[in-house]
């Protein structure tokens, strides 16, 4: 069984950033994404996720390494100053290289 190296970029942010991030993912050509409703705390304080105004999400995207770089750069440039958000990437291995 061959597996192929990919990056998983994880973005945790306030729910209001959802559409903007989705748009960005389309632009960089991600083939898909997975979104979690989460609770959390960070420099922007607690996000109990009790009401929409303070809701928090985690977005995970599997993309080829080169795209991951672009994604992180644009997140840093366009999002970090605006939204409660963190982003990081890690290495994963997938089975169907060209699905991602």
């Amino acid at each position, binding site marked *: 069984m061959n597996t192929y190296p990919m990056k998983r970029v994880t973005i945790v942010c*306030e729910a*209001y950033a959802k*559409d*903007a991030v989705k748009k960005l993912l389309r632009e960089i050509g991600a083939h898909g994404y997975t979104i979690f*409703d989460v609770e959390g705390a960070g420099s922007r304080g607690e996000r*109990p*996720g*009790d*009401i*929409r*105004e303070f*809701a928090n999400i985690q977005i995970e995207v599997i993309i080829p390494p080169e795209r991951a770089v672009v994604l992180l750069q644009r997140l840093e440039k*366009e999002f970090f100053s*605006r*939204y409660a958000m963190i982003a990081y990437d890690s290495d994963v291995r997938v089975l169907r290289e060209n699905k991602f």
Partner: protein
Amino acid sequence: MDVFEAIRANLLSPAVLFFALGIFAALVKSDLKFPEPLYVGLTIYLLVAIGFKGGVAIAESGLRQVWLPGVAAMLLGALIPVWIFPMLRYVGKFTAVDSAAIAAHYGSVSAVTFIAATDYLKSVNVPYEGYATAFLAVMESPAILVGVVLGKLATKKAGESSGASLRTAVHEAIFGRSIFLLVGALVVGALCGTAGMAKVQAFFVTPFQGVLALFLLEMGIVAGRRLGDLKKVGPFLLGFGVLAPLLNGALGVYLGQLTGLGIGGATLLGVLAASASYIAAPAAIRMSLPDANPTFYLTASLAITFPFNITVGIPLYLAFARQLFP
């Protein structure tokens, strides 16, 4: 019944007492918490119920009586930001985008505050025009759009990038959850009239006040959680959060009388003017003015103005209306 008596009566209503209980729960860090889906469910119920009732009322009274005060309400909503923006910008020394964001919230309206007011009017036996809900519906968006435009102009000037396009704002302000439900249910109610009401009354009308009480318990928890932010926003915003509603409220009541509403209707228009949005506006503003600091507008509308109106404001606006009307 004098003002203090009126306020006392209001404070002892189940709705307000449950709101207080919720704030207390937050203060003592009880693990009591409404799951988000329950909060959303209650919101949907309240908006649909109030919208539907209003629509039926319009079907009964006909548009002829509604349009004049309706247009007035709309203008009022659109103009409130125009005096609030400079006040915050130049007196309060807030950034342009923050001033615009807050202005949008105070020009827009809080459906729950409106509902609590109708609840209060019922309990003190002051009749009101059922179609007043139409004013709620038309006042929600305009101020948001005005606020966003003010914010864009400002940020443009400052040459910053301007976040999600104005289109987002318009879309959110028209098709956003709360406004959509309210207007949609209003239209549905207007279309099926009393015949339709007969079918769904037992669900949308009879238990309504009880659901409101339960919902205010949750609102109390949410507002209580933000009380900690009061020190972050500074004294100016604290004062603003109480004075702005008083001023806007008076304006609203007055305009209501001018456009031919009765004491009840005028009070409700006052309440709408006085209330600050914390559902429609935050969503639209966060997406179209991402550079505005949410702590300011959320704390002001949710932790200051909302509790003030629910407890003291509503009876005051009614008292003022009683003064105005011969």
